[in-house]
């Protein structure tokens, strides 16, 4: 049953969110820009922040980004992956930092939410490469941020944990439906508020809000569907720890919205499975 005081208390704690670093906020303001002046500015912003540079390069070299050569400078990264992808990685480094903690309310170990997010980001990029060309880097970014709401939601879930587990087992529903039933609000809704606070682009907020209900997407249904599919597969495969991977299914509407036929679907699942279970083989 919904507890209005719990919802109020969760909403009040949006203020506890760590602020977005100025360098990343500056990059987000240029999220959709792609001209050469912006490129020079982006390179300058990232390179002037040593910690950001290191984190961006580390992400660039991760298996999920799929590069076949080691990247050792922002200039090199920019020439290989483009500035839009660089912006994605900069945001990714911030998300990695804030998702480092253990999330007791989901039984997610330290670093577990980040591992899941990067897995979903890689999967989303893979799907977009075929079914939403031109949005590969946006899909990657959306995958990285899709579950930010869990950071806030976790501590409130701890109190309701027994009830949530009980309803999941009894009614065989996914975790986010149990969140709604017991707490009156989901991590997706909380995530939307957090994303608005951080002034993330609306296209990303749409994904954060609707990745469990892609039929409700407002700005880009295909992008939301892509992240939904990647998220669901990641959980089915168990490449994410935590109780929120139980009773997961892939929404058929999400698959249809990408015009994927049966043979293509099987091939897509195979490619996502290979990426997520055997990233070293990419």
């Amino acid at each position, binding site marked *: 049953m919904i507890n209005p005081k719990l919802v109020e208390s969760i909403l009040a704690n949006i203020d506890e969110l760590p602020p977005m670093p100025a360098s990343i906020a500056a990059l987000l303001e240029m999220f959709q820009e792609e001209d050469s002046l912006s490129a020079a500015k982006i390179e300058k912003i990232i390179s002037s922040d040593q910690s950001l540079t290191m984190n961006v390069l580390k992400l660039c070299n991760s298996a999920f980004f799929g590069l076949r050569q080691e990247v050792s400078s922002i200039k090199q990264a920019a020439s290989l992956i483009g500035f839009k992808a660089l912006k994605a990685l900069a945001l990714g480094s911030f998300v990695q930092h804030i998702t480092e903690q253990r999330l007791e309310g989901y039984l997610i170990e330290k670093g577990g939410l980040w591992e899941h997010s990067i897995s979903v980001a890689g999967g989303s990029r893979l799907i977009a490469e075929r079914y939403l060309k031109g949005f590969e880097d946006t899909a990657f970014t959306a995958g990285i941020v899709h579950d930010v709401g869990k950071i806030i939601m976790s501590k409130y879930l701890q109190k309701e944990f027994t009830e949530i587990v009980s309803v*999941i087992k009894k009614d065989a529903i996914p975790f986010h439906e149990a969140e709604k039933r017991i707490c009156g609000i989901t991590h997706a809704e909380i995530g939307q508020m957090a994303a608005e606070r951080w002034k993330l682009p609306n296209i990303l907020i749409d994904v954060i809000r609707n990745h469990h209900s892609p039929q409700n997407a407002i700005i880009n249904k295909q992008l939301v569907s892509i992240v939904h599919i990647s998220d669901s597969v990641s959980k*089915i495969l*168990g490449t994410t720890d935590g109780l929120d991977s139980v*009773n997961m299914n892939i929404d058929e509407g999400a698959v249809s919205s990408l015009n994927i036929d049966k043979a293509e679907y099987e091939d897509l699942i195979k490619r996502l499975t*290979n990426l997520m*279970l055997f990233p070293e083989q990419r």
Partner: protein
Amino acid sequence: MNPDRIIVIGASTGGPKAIVELFSELVWELKIPVVVAVHAPIDIADTIASGLKRKMESNPLMETFRGKPLSSKNQTSYKTVIHNEDIQGGTVYFSPGKKHTFVTMDFMRSYLRVSDEPSMTTFKPSVDLLFISAANSFKSKVLGIVLTGLSTGRDGVEGCKKIKEYGGAVVVQDKRTSECFGMPKNIIDAGLADSVLPLKLIANKMKMFQ
């Protein structure tokens, strides 16, 4: 040659990743058959089998005798079950998605059957049906392993009971390394688990069993 013992593995939520991690620990020569059933709403048996094959082919065997490797190449086969195929040692068989796999023994020939029946089971492939058929066929020479999974439906409990009735052994994954501890816990609560172990030590148990 007909194998004289078999390992059967069941898993649910978190299963695919746990299976890959478990078999990544098999850096020794597998001589007996292993049959795996994982609950999943998508059919990934083939993909996991071929991914493991590629992964393990590039890992040299770590067994040595007086400092020299016993064999340089990992010969373990990984494949999806084909209906009516003979069971071979050194092979890991994955039950295809949304079908049951049964271990069968007829006149000294052991083989695997795949079936849609019974259709009205909570899970397909059923861990219980796999484990029960293995116990009926191989009697006491069965090691049953239950990995991560939610506890809904209690799949695996009846199967482990049958294995123990025949004198076989049961190992379950521990809480610390399980994504969901429900399935292993059901086995522990029923008094059927001989060992509760992390994945790495489950791999050791498999080696000791063969």
